[in-house]
Protein backbone atom coordinates (compact mmCIF):
# COMPACT_ATOMS: atom_id res chain seq x y z
CA UNK A 1 0.00 0.00 0.00
CA UNK A 2 1.17 3.52 -0.77
CA UNK A 3 2.38 5.09 2.48
CA UNK A 4 1.36 8.50 3.77
CA UNK A 5 4.43 10.70 3.74
CA UNK A 6 5.93 12.71 6.60
CA UNK A 7 7.91 15.66 5.27
CA UNK A 8 10.09 17.89 7.43
CA UNK A 9 10.48 21.33 5.90
CA UNK A 10 13.73 23.19 6.22
CA UNK A 11 13.61 26.91 5.60
CA UNK A 12 16.96 28.14 4.39
CA UNK A 13 18.38 31.60 4.74
CA UNK A 14 21.99 32.36 3.90
CA UNK A 15 22.76 28.63 3.84
CA UNK A 16 21.38 27.98 7.34
CA UNK A 17 18.18 26.29 8.43
CA UNK A 18 15.81 28.71 10.08
CA UNK A 19 12.27 28.63 11.36
CA UNK A 20 9.91 31.56 11.70
CA UNK A 21 6.54 31.75 13.42
CA UNK A 22 3.82 33.13 11.15
CA UNK A 23 6.48 33.92 8.55
CA UNK A 24 8.22 36.27 11.01
CA UNK A 25 10.64 36.14 13.97
CA UNK A 26 13.26 33.96 12.35
CA UNK A 27 15.55 31.74 14.42
CA UNK A 28 18.47 29.62 13.29
CA UNK A 29 18.25 25.87 13.93
CA UNK A 30 21.16 24.15 12.22
CA UNK A 31 23.11 22.98 9.18
CA UNK A 32 20.69 22.02 6.37
CA UNK A 33 22.72 19.04 5.18
CA UNK A 34 23.31 17.54 8.63
CA UNK A 35 19.73 18.15 9.67
CA UNK A 36 18.43 16.59 6.45
CA UNK A 37 20.59 13.49 6.86
CA UNK A 38 19.41 13.15 10.46
CA UNK A 39 15.77 13.31 9.36
CA UNK A 40 16.42 10.69 6.68
CA UNK A 41 17.91 8.41 9.36
CA UNK A 42 14.88 9.04 11.57
CA UNK A 43 12.50 7.87 8.84
CA UNK A 44 11.43 11.08 7.11
CA UNK A 45 9.91 10.15 3.74
CA UNK A 46 10.98 13.24 1.89
CA UNK A 47 12.39 16.68 2.62
CA UNK A 48 11.50 20.15 1.47
CA UNK A 49 14.13 22.89 1.37
CA UNK A 50 12.77 26.38 0.91
CA UNK A 51 15.01 29.34 0.27
CA UNK A 52 12.80 31.79 2.13
CA UNK A 53 14.62 34.96 1.23
CA UNK A 54 14.95 34.17 -2.45
CA UNK A 55 11.58 35.26 -3.67
CA UNK A 56 11.48 38.85 -2.51
CA UNK A 57 15.15 39.69 -2.29
CA UNK A 58 15.94 38.07 -5.65
CA UNK A 59 18.69 36.08 -4.04
CA UNK A 60 20.90 33.90 -6.15
CA UNK A 61 19.79 30.29 -6.25
CA UNK A 62 21.33 28.04 -3.69
CA UNK A 63 22.47 25.38 -6.11
CA UNK A 64 25.72 24.63 -4.32
CA UNK A 65 23.82 23.77 -1.19
CA UNK A 66 21.42 21.66 -3.23
CA UNK A 67 24.34 19.70 -4.61
CA UNK A 68 25.65 19.00 -1.10
CA UNK A 69 22.18 17.90 -0.03
CA UNK A 70 21.83 15.58 -3.02
CA UNK A 71 25.22 14.03 -2.35
CA UNK A 72 24.35 13.21 1.26
CA UNK A 73 20.70 12.26 1.16
CA UNK A 74 19.25 8.86 0.20
CA UNK A 75 15.61 9.98 0.13
CA UNK A 76 13.89 12.41 -2.25
CA UNK A 77 13.89 16.15 -1.64
CA UNK A 78 12.39 19.18 -3.25
CA UNK A 79 13.67 22.71 -3.34
CA UNK A 80 11.83 25.98 -3.64
CA UNK A 81 12.38 29.68 -3.50
CA UNK A 82 13.53 31.99 -6.24
CA UNK A 83 12.52 29.81 -9.16
CA UNK A 84 11.42 32.41 -11.65
CA UNK A 85 12.12 30.81 -14.98
CA UNK A 86 12.75 27.46 -16.62
CA UNK A 87 16.49 27.95 -16.34
CA UNK A 88 16.31 28.18 -12.53
CA UNK A 89 14.56 24.79 -12.45
CA UNK A 90 17.15 23.38 -14.82
CA UNK A 91 20.02 24.46 -12.55
CA UNK A 92 18.37 22.80 -9.54
CA UNK A 93 17.70 19.59 -11.47
CA UNK A 94 21.34 19.46 -12.54
CA UNK A 95 22.40 20.04 -8.94
CA UNK A 96 20.46 16.91 -7.96
CA UNK A 97 17.04 18.13 -6.76
CA UNK A 98 14.23 15.61 -7.26
CA UNK A 99 11.51 18.24 -7.45
CA UNK A 100 11.13 21.97 -7.46
CA UNK A 101 8.36 23.83 -5.72
CA UNK A 102 7.15 27.01 -7.32
CA UNK A 103 4.89 29.60 -5.78
CA UNK A 104 5.00 33.37 -6.48
CA UNK A 105 6.58 33.05 -9.92
CA UNK A 106 3.80 30.84 -11.31
CA UNK A 107 1.13 33.16 -9.96
CA UNK A 108 2.78 35.92 -11.98
CA UNK A 109 3.40 33.64 -14.97
CA UNK A 110 1.24 30.47 -14.89
CA UNK A 111 2.79 29.30 -18.18
CA UNK A 112 5.94 28.45 -16.19
CA UNK A 113 4.12 25.40 -14.75
CA UNK A 114 3.50 24.10 -18.28
CA UNK A 115 7.10 24.76 -19.24
CA UNK A 116 8.64 22.91 -16.28
CA UNK A 117 6.19 20.00 -16.62
CA UNK A 118 6.85 19.70 -20.35
CA UNK A 119 10.59 19.97 -19.89
CA UNK A 120 11.14 17.67 -16.92
CA UNK A 121 7.86 15.88 -16.27
CA UNK A 122 4.98 16.58 -13.89
CA UNK A 123 6.70 14.64 -11.10
CA UNK A 124 9.33 17.40 -10.99
CA UNK A 125 6.95 20.28 -10.28
CA UNK A 126 5.20 20.98 -7.00
CA UNK A 127 3.03 24.06 -6.94
CA UNK A 128 3.06 25.59 -3.46
CA UNK A 129 0.06 27.68 -2.55
CA UNK A 130 -0.14 29.94 0.51
CA UNK A 131 -3.69 30.90 1.29
CA UNK A 132 -5.66 32.55 4.08
CA UNK A 133 -9.34 32.07 4.90
CA UNK A 134 -10.89 35.52 4.69
CA UNK A 135 -14.66 35.98 4.92
CA UNK A 136 -15.28 32.39 3.89
CA UNK A 137 -12.94 32.52 0.88
CA UNK A 138 -9.43 31.06 0.64
CA UNK A 139 -7.41 34.02 -0.59
CA UNK A 140 -4.08 33.19 -2.27
CA UNK A 141 -0.97 35.14 -1.19
CA UNK A 142 2.47 35.40 -2.75
CA UNK A 143 5.90 36.67 -1.71
CA UNK A 144 6.04 34.66 1.49
CA UNK A 145 2.54 35.60 2.59
CA UNK A 146 3.02 39.32 2.10
CA UNK A 147 0.91 40.04 -0.94
CA UNK A 148 -2.65 38.95 -1.75
CA UNK A 149 -3.40 38.23 -5.41
CA UNK A 150 -6.63 37.90 -7.36
CA UNK A 151 -6.83 34.14 -6.96
CA UNK A 152 -8.82 31.70 -4.88
CA UNK A 153 -7.27 28.46 -3.59
CA UNK A 154 -9.45 25.81 -5.24
CA UNK A 155 -9.68 27.43 -8.67
CA UNK A 156 -5.96 28.08 -8.69
CA UNK A 157 -5.13 24.53 -7.59
CA UNK A 158 -7.29 23.11 -10.38
CA UNK A 159 -5.68 25.39 -12.92
CA UNK A 160 -2.12 24.39 -12.03
CA UNK A 161 -3.11 20.72 -12.11
CA UNK A 162 -4.39 21.25 -15.64
CA UNK A 163 -1.12 22.94 -16.50
CA UNK A 164 0.85 19.90 -15.40
CA UNK A 165 1.69 20.27 -11.70
CA UNK A 166 2.57 16.92 -10.14
CA UNK A 167 1.65 17.85 -6.56
CA UNK A 168 0.10 20.66 -4.58
CA UNK A 169 1.68 21.91 -1.37
CA UNK A 170 -0.99 23.87 0.45
CA UNK A 171 -0.07 26.06 3.42
CA UNK A 172 -2.90 27.52 5.42
CA UNK A 173 -1.66 30.87 6.70
CA UNK A 174 -4.39 30.80 9.35
CA UNK A 175 -2.92 27.62 10.78
CA UNK A 176 0.80 28.04 10.09
CA UNK A 177 2.81 28.45 13.29
CA UNK A 178 -0.20 28.00 15.58
CA UNK A 179 0.32 24.30 16.39
CA UNK A 180 -3.47 23.97 16.58
CA UNK A 181 -3.81 21.46 13.75
CA UNK A 182 -3.99 21.47 9.97
CA UNK A 183 -6.73 23.05 7.84
CA UNK A 184 -8.48 19.69 7.41
CA UNK A 185 -11.70 20.97 5.80
CA UNK A 186 -9.90 22.84 3.03
CA UNK A 187 -7.46 19.97 2.56
CA UNK A 188 -10.26 17.45 2.20
CA UNK A 189 -11.92 19.59 -0.44
CA UNK A 190 -8.62 20.04 -2.27
CA UNK A 191 -7.89 16.35 -2.20
CA UNK A 192 -11.34 15.53 -3.55
CA UNK A 193 -11.28 17.96 -6.46
CA UNK A 194 -7.72 17.13 -7.52
CA UNK A 195 -6.30 14.00 -9.11
CA UNK A 196 -2.73 14.76 -8.00
CA UNK A 197 -1.28 14.32 -4.48
CA UNK A 198 -1.80 17.02 -1.85
CA UNK A 199 0.81 17.91 0.75
CA UNK A 200 -0.64 19.52 3.87
CA UNK A 201 1.29 22.30 5.56
CA UNK A 202 0.72 24.62 8.50
CA UNK A 203 -0.50 23.91 12.01
CA UNK A 204 1.13 20.65 13.11
CA UNK A 205 1.45 20.57 16.89
CA UNK A 206 0.58 17.06 18.07
CA UNK A 207 0.62 13.49 16.79
CA UNK A 208 -3.17 13.61 16.69
CA UNK A 209 -3.01 16.48 14.19
CA UNK A 210 -1.20 14.17 11.75
CA UNK A 211 -3.79 11.45 12.26
CA UNK A 212 -6.51 14.03 11.55
CA UNK A 213 -4.84 15.41 8.44
CA UNK A 214 -4.60 11.94 6.90
CA UNK A 215 -8.04 10.70 8.04
CA UNK A 216 -10.24 13.82 7.82
CA UNK A 217 -8.03 15.99 5.63
CA UNK A 218 -7.40 13.16 3.12
CA UNK A 219 -3.87 14.49 2.61
CA UNK A 220 -1.28 12.34 0.87
CA UNK A 221 1.59 13.86 2.81
CA UNK A 222 2.02 16.17 5.78
CA UNK A 223 4.71 18.74 6.20
CA UNK A 224 5.97 20.36 9.38
CA UNK A 225 9.01 22.26 10.57
CA UNK A 226 9.40 23.43 14.14
CA UNK A 227 7.99 20.34 15.87
CA UNK A 228 10.74 18.35 14.14
CA UNK A 229 13.49 20.96 14.43
CA UNK A 230 12.97 21.30 18.18
CA UNK A 231 12.37 17.56 18.56
CA UNK A 232 8.96 18.11 20.09
CA UNK A 233 7.70 15.11 18.11
CA UNK A 234 10.52 12.79 17.01
CA UNK A 235 9.68 11.21 13.64
CA UNK A 236 9.98 7.56 14.83
CA UNK A 237 7.54 8.30 17.66
CA UNK A 238 5.13 10.00 15.25
CA UNK A 239 5.24 7.07 12.86
CA UNK A 240 4.58 4.57 15.66
CA UNK A 241 1.60 6.64 16.73
CA UNK A 242 0.23 6.70 13.18
CA UNK A 243 0.72 2.94 12.76
CA UNK A 244 -1.16 2.33 16.01
CA UNK A 245 -3.97 4.46 14.59
CA UNK A 246 -4.15 2.43 11.38
CA UNK A 247 -2.50 4.91 9.07
CA UNK A 248 -0.18 3.32 6.57
CA UNK A 249 3.28 4.80 7.05
CA UNK A 250 6.70 3.47 6.18
Amino acid at each position, binding site marked *: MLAKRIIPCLDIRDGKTVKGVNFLDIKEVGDPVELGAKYAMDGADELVYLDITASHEKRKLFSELVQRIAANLNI*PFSVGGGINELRDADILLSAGADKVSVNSAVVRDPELVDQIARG*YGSQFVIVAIDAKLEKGRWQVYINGGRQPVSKELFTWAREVQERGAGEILFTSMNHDGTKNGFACDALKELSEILSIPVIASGGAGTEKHFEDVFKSGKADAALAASIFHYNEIPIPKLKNYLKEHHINVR
Partner: protein
Amino acid sequence: MDVVIIKYNAGNIRSVDFALKRMGIEAEITDDIQRIYAAKKVIFPGVGEASGTMKYLMENGLDKVLKRLSQPVLGICLGQQLMCEWSEEGNTDCIGIFDQPVLKFPPQDKVPHMGWNQLLNPVGPLFKNVQEGAYAYFVHSYYVPVCDDTVAECDYINRFSAAMHKNNFYATQFHPEKSGETGQRVLENFISL
Protein backbone atom coordinates in the same frame (compact mmCIF):
# COMPACT_ATOMS: atom_id res chain seq x y z
CA MET B 1 34.51 -1.42 -10.05
CA ASP B 2 34.08 -0.16 -13.57
CA VAL B 3 30.56 1.27 -13.68
CA VAL B 4 29.10 3.44 -16.40
CA ILE B 5 25.96 5.55 -16.18
CA ILE B 6 24.48 6.23 -19.58
CA LYS B 7 24.31 9.94 -20.29
CA TYR B 8 21.27 11.08 -22.23
CA ASN B 9 18.57 13.74 -22.16
CA ALA B 10 16.79 12.56 -19.02
CA GLY B 11 16.87 13.76 -15.46
CA ASN B 12 18.03 12.01 -12.33
CA ILE B 13 21.42 10.88 -13.63
CA ARG B 14 23.20 12.90 -10.99
CA SER B 15 21.27 11.23 -8.13
CA VAL B 16 22.39 7.78 -9.22
CA ASP B 17 25.98 8.97 -9.37
CA PHE B 18 25.69 10.41 -5.85
CA ALA B 19 24.21 7.14 -4.54
CA LEU B 20 27.13 5.16 -5.99
CA LYS B 21 29.60 7.65 -4.49
CA ARG B 22 28.03 7.05 -1.07
CA MET B 23 28.87 3.37 -1.63
CA GLY B 24 32.45 4.32 -2.52
CA ILE B 25 32.02 3.75 -6.27
CA GLU B 26 33.24 6.31 -8.79
CA ALA B 27 31.07 5.77 -11.85
CA GLU B 28 31.59 7.41 -15.20
CA ILE B 29 28.69 9.27 -16.78
CA THR B 30 29.11 8.89 -20.52
CA ASP B 31 27.45 8.46 -23.91
CA ASP B 32 30.64 7.11 -25.45
CA ILE B 33 29.63 3.85 -27.12
CA GLN B 34 33.01 2.14 -26.72
CA ARG B 35 33.13 3.00 -23.01
CA ILE B 36 29.62 1.63 -22.54
CA TYR B 37 30.49 -1.64 -24.30
CA ALA B 38 33.66 -2.03 -22.23
CA ALA B 39 32.18 -1.32 -18.78
CA LYS B 40 31.66 -4.10 -16.23
CA LYS B 41 28.27 -2.68 -15.19
CA VAL B 42 25.93 -0.31 -16.98
CA ILE B 43 23.22 1.79 -15.33
CA PHE B 44 20.45 3.29 -17.44
CA PRO B 45 18.59 5.73 -15.16
CA GLY B 46 15.97 8.25 -16.04
CA VAL B 47 13.09 10.49 -15.27
CA GLY B 48 11.30 12.07 -18.18
CA GLU B 49 8.98 11.53 -21.07
CA ALA B 50 9.20 8.38 -23.21
CA SER B 51 8.89 9.58 -26.83
CA GLY B 52 11.38 12.47 -26.65
CA THR B 53 13.87 10.36 -24.75
CA MET B 54 13.53 7.42 -27.13
CA LYS B 55 14.04 9.74 -30.10
CA TYR B 56 17.27 11.03 -28.53
CA LEU B 57 18.53 7.49 -27.85
CA MET B 58 17.86 6.46 -31.46
CA GLU B 59 19.52 9.54 -32.92
CA ASN B 60 22.61 8.71 -30.90
CA GLY B 61 22.54 4.98 -31.60
CA LEU B 62 22.20 4.22 -27.89
CA ASP B 63 19.05 2.10 -28.33
CA LYS B 64 20.97 -0.50 -30.34
CA VAL B 65 23.95 -0.37 -27.99
CA LEU B 66 21.76 -1.07 -24.97
CA LYS B 67 20.12 -4.08 -26.59
CA ARG B 68 23.48 -5.60 -27.52
CA LEU B 69 25.10 -5.28 -24.10
CA SER B 70 26.13 -8.55 -22.46
CA GLN B 71 27.29 -7.28 -19.03
CA PRO B 72 24.77 -6.63 -16.23
CA VAL B 73 22.56 -3.63 -17.08
CA LEU B 74 20.24 -1.88 -14.63
CA GLY B 75 17.42 0.30 -15.96
CA ILE B 76 15.76 2.62 -13.46
CA CYS B 77 12.24 4.10 -13.69
CA LEU B 78 11.93 5.47 -17.25
CA GLY B 79 14.94 3.24 -17.96
CA GLN B 80 12.84 0.17 -17.16
CA GLN B 81 9.99 1.43 -19.30
CA LEU B 82 12.22 2.16 -22.29
CA MET B 83 13.64 -1.37 -22.07
CA CYS B 84 10.13 -2.68 -22.85
CA GLU B 85 8.49 -3.13 -26.26
CA TRP B 86 6.19 -0.13 -26.51
CA SER B 87 4.92 2.71 -24.32
CA GLU B 88 1.48 4.22 -24.25
CA GLU B 89 3.24 7.49 -23.39
CA GLY B 90 3.41 9.24 -26.77
CA ASN B 91 2.66 5.90 -28.53
CA THR B 92 6.39 5.13 -28.46
CA ASP B 93 8.24 2.12 -29.83
CA CYS B 94 10.89 1.31 -27.25
CA ILE B 95 14.08 -0.76 -27.10
CA GLY B 96 12.36 -4.13 -26.81
CA ILE B 97 14.45 -6.06 -24.30
CA PHE B 98 11.41 -7.00 -22.23
CA ASP B 99 8.51 -8.19 -24.37
CA GLN B 100 5.98 -6.02 -22.54
CA PRO B 101 3.89 -2.89 -23.05
CA VAL B 102 4.08 0.17 -20.78
CA LEU B 103 0.60 1.36 -19.84
CA LYS B 104 -0.85 4.47 -18.24
CA PHE B 105 -2.43 4.05 -14.81
CA PRO B 106 -6.23 4.30 -15.08
CA PRO B 107 -7.45 7.36 -13.14
CA GLN B 108 -8.97 5.36 -10.26
CA ASP B 109 -6.60 6.93 -7.79
CA LYS B 110 -4.13 9.79 -7.82
CA VAL B 111 -1.66 9.74 -10.70
CA PRO B 112 1.37 9.96 -10.62
CA HIS B 113 1.88 7.10 -8.20
CA MET B 114 4.19 9.06 -5.95
CA GLY B 115 5.82 8.05 -2.71
CA TRP B 116 6.86 4.98 -0.75
CA ASN B 117 5.19 1.69 -1.56
CA GLN B 118 5.90 -1.92 -0.69
CA LEU B 119 7.84 -4.48 -2.70
CA LEU B 120 5.83 -7.69 -2.96
CA ASN B 121 7.37 -11.10 -3.74
CA PRO B 122 10.88 -9.74 -4.30
CA VAL B 123 13.01 -12.58 -5.68
CA GLY B 124 16.40 -13.15 -7.29
CA PRO B 125 19.86 -11.63 -6.92
CA LEU B 126 18.71 -7.98 -6.95
CA PHE B 127 16.71 -8.54 -3.77
CA LYS B 128 19.19 -10.46 -1.66
CA ASN B 129 18.57 -9.37 1.96
CA VAL B 130 15.53 -7.33 0.96
CA GLN B 131 12.45 -8.26 2.98
CA GLU B 132 8.96 -8.90 1.66
CA GLY B 133 7.03 -5.65 2.09
CA ALA B 134 10.10 -3.41 2.23
CA TYR B 135 9.34 0.13 1.12
CA ALA B 136 10.80 1.72 -1.99
CA TYR B 137 10.31 5.16 -3.55
CA PHE B 138 8.21 5.39 -6.73
CA VAL B 139 7.31 8.32 -9.01
CA HIS B 140 5.56 7.38 -12.23
CA SER B 141 2.34 7.60 -14.23
CA TYR B 142 2.99 4.58 -16.46
CA TYR B 143 3.65 0.98 -15.45
CA VAL B 144 4.71 -2.41 -16.78
CA PRO B 145 2.19 -5.21 -16.08
CA VAL B 146 3.24 -8.26 -14.05
CA CYS B 147 4.82 -10.77 -16.45
CA ASP B 148 7.28 -13.70 -16.61
CA ASP B 149 10.22 -11.31 -16.17
CA THR B 150 8.79 -9.68 -13.03
CA VAL B 151 11.05 -10.15 -9.98
CA ALA B 152 9.17 -7.83 -7.60
CA GLU B 153 5.62 -6.54 -7.69
CA CYS B 154 3.93 -3.46 -6.30
CA ASP B 155 0.26 -2.73 -5.75
CA TYR B 156 -1.18 0.62 -6.82
CA ILE B 157 -4.49 0.75 -8.68
CA ASN B 158 -3.40 -2.67 -9.93
CA ARG B 159 -0.45 -5.01 -9.51
CA PHE B 160 2.50 -4.02 -11.64
CA SER B 161 6.20 -4.84 -12.12
CA ALA B 162 8.30 -3.09 -9.46
CA ALA B 163 11.36 -4.85 -10.88
CA MET B 164 12.23 -7.08 -13.83
CA HIS B 165 15.02 -9.43 -14.84
CA LYS B 166 15.85 -11.19 -18.08
CA ASN B 167 19.30 -12.61 -18.89
CA ASN B 168 21.81 -9.83 -18.13
CA PHE B 169 19.13 -7.13 -17.99
CA TYR B 170 17.70 -5.86 -14.69
CA ALA B 171 15.27 -3.03 -14.16
CA THR B 172 13.40 -1.30 -11.35
CA GLN B 173 10.37 0.97 -11.58
CA PHE B 174 11.28 2.42 -8.17
CA HIS B 175 14.29 4.62 -7.55
CA PRO B 176 16.90 2.63 -5.59
CA GLU B 177 19.03 5.77 -5.34
CA LYS B 178 16.21 7.45 -3.40
CA SER B 179 14.89 4.45 -1.48
CA GLY B 180 16.95 4.74 1.69
CA GLU B 181 18.67 1.58 2.94
CA THR B 182 16.49 -0.76 0.90
CA GLY B 183 17.51 1.04 -2.26
CA GLN B 184 21.14 1.00 -1.31
CA ARG B 185 20.95 -2.78 -0.82
CA VAL B 186 19.45 -3.20 -4.30
CA LEU B 187 22.25 -1.11 -5.81
CA GLU B 188 24.87 -3.06 -3.86
CA ASN B 189 23.33 -6.32 -5.06
CA PHE B 190 23.49 -5.12 -8.65
CA ILE B 191 27.09 -3.96 -8.31
CA SER B 192 28.16 -7.29 -6.82
CA LEU B 193 26.51 -9.40 -9.56
